[in-house]
């Protein structure tokens, strides 16, 4: 090294590399709203199904509309956020789960074999438990792993619960794992965004 100033400049370059690598990897995607949206959609479908004379259209219409809304709103976000391996892995888990649920329940509904509410809730909760656990493990996010545990507990409970107990348990799981968790996610994302740009 020829001088102190040059040495400081080189250290500054090294620090810039570290800061920018961390900045690039920082997850800035906003997905909390998706949990809230789907939580509300489940409530709408349940209400329509229960107070709409058990309409066969309640679930297919609500789920299809919510899927379309999610896709449209996500497109705007995906267009500007960078794609990382982690974000692609997590998106793949949720997209695959969504397609599985759609194909399974649409087919069961159309064929008239979706009569058992207990079986329906057990399968939905198991699938949501799997997706939340996978996502939580990738992100090392304890809150999401806790949500997975709630869904898996509901899976077991749905097989043994009696009458209205199951409905209340299902509504409570949706409230905590979709609405509350989604709002918590949105608060976390807003905090990360306020940290702002790192100017080069």
């Amino acid at each position: 090294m020829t001088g102190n100033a040059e040495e400081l400049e080189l250290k500054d370059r090294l620090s810039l590399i570290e800061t920018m690598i961390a900045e690039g990897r920082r997850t800035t995607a906003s997905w909390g709203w998706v949990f809230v949206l789907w939580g509300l959609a489940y409530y709408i479908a349940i209400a329509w199904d229960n107070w709409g004379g058990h309409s066969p259209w309640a679930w297919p219409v609500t789920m299809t509309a919510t899927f379309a809304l999610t896709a449209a709103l996500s497109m705007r976000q995906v267009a500007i956020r960078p794609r990382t391996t982690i974000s692609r892995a997590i998106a793949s888990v949720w997209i695959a789960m969504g397609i599985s649920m759609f194909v399974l329940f649409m087919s069961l509904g159309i064929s008239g074999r979706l009569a058992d509410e207990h079986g329906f809730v057990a399968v939905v909760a198991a699938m949501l438990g799997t997706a939340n656990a996978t996502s939580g493990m990738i992100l090392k996010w304890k809150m999401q792993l806790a949500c997975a545990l709630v869904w898996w507990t509901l899976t077991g409970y749905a097989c043994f619960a009696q009458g209205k107990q199951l409905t209340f348990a299902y509504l409570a799981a949706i409230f905590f794992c979709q609405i509350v968790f989604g709002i918590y996610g949105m608060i976390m994302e807003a905090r990360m965004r306020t940290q702002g740009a790192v100017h080069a």
Partner: protein
Amino acid sequence: MPELPELNPVIHGKLRLALLSLLIGVEEAEFTWLRSKTGSTDGNLGAQLTKLEEAGYVAVKKKFVQRKPQTLYRMTEAGRQALTEYVQALKQLLGGSMD
């Protein structure tokens, strides 16, 4: 005594170094995202990205999303190699002063 390495002049520019460091952590990134992370102007950012593209360190892809044009940048293998060598050279130059 071993010869001190020379720093790659294409990477040594502060904005170009920031861009490569950002791109190494993502699969691909849009122009506006790079602009927001670096806080640079459109003109300067475009010029520095062109230099990196000419050196073969980044690849560019243009597409339309919802009828809006989008320019996506991703780091090439040559860019990854160049950044790795640059960091090694930097560490060698700084030597014991890094502790």
